[in-house]
């Protein structure tokens, strides 16, 4: 089984999910060298499937998976295997989810301070919306 085949399958299942271009480097920075990329992908795919199926209602699947952090922004939470990662996302006007930024939550399972990540995520969201407006 080739990776491209699996990614194509996932694309069919998930539909359109956009990502901010820096997301890849942020995820690699958090997981690289730790040998945990396989674990991350497993948990990431699980959340992506739930997000694509449930949309804004994904937060009903529990605070250990998703939480709403303000009127526009949501957080994908990775607590398993001590990954302690958060991925902030939002929804575009057409309802498509867009993944905006990833960061390592140093405080682990305790309450996350989203102040700085929220500011960055909102800037990125506006950038994407603006880019889409301008074609």
């Amino acid at each position, binding site marked *: *089984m*080739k*990776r*491209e085949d*699996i*990614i*194509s399958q*996932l*694309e069919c*299942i*998930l539909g359109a*999910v*956009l*990502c*901010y*271009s820096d*997301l*890849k480097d942020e*995820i*690699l920075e958090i*997981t*690289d060298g730790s040998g945990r*990329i*396989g*674990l*991350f*992908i*497993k*948990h*990431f*795919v*699980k*959340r*992506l*499937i*739930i997000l694509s*199926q*449930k949309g804004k209602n994904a937060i*009903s*699947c*529990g605070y250990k*998976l998703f939480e709403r952090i303000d009127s526009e922004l949501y957080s994908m939470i990775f607590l*398993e295997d001590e990954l302690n990662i958060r991925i902030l996302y939002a929804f575009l006007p057409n309802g498509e989810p*867009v*993944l905006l930024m990833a960061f390592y939550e140093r405080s682990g399972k305790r309450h996350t301070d989203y102040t700085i990540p929220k500011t960055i995520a909102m800037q990125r969201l506006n*950038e*994407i919306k603006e*880019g889409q407006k301008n074609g």
Partner: protein
Amino acid sequence: MDKELSDILAGISDSISDKDFTLATYQGLIAAEITMKRIEKKMNQTEFAKYMGVTQGMVSKWEKGETNFTLGTLTNIATKLDIMMQCPFVARPTPLYSGGFTDTKDNITPFPDKWKVEAYDNSSYQLVDSDLKEM
């Protein structure tokens, strides 16, 4: 600025093998399906474990993608939760090479001679009165 999810997945999974990527993806897919079914039934893990006839610890492992399922277990889960199953093995479509059938690029079985068709040339063909009368 924005990227497709497939680019991100291909980028972050660069350091692991196709086999590990496939395994992680399927673990995530199964974990997502079971979690969503439990949420749809409005059950916590303990209630769901009772419903499924297993321990809460087992449900937790299912939802974290930590179980190496046997086909029997997957069939039991799918039956109980009314989840459709399909064979994970799918024949790869083979490219068609001119001049014969092929199962691999190097193993071409030529078409039988009687199947060969001369190239059709209609340059010398003109409608004559007899054709028109038949029409």
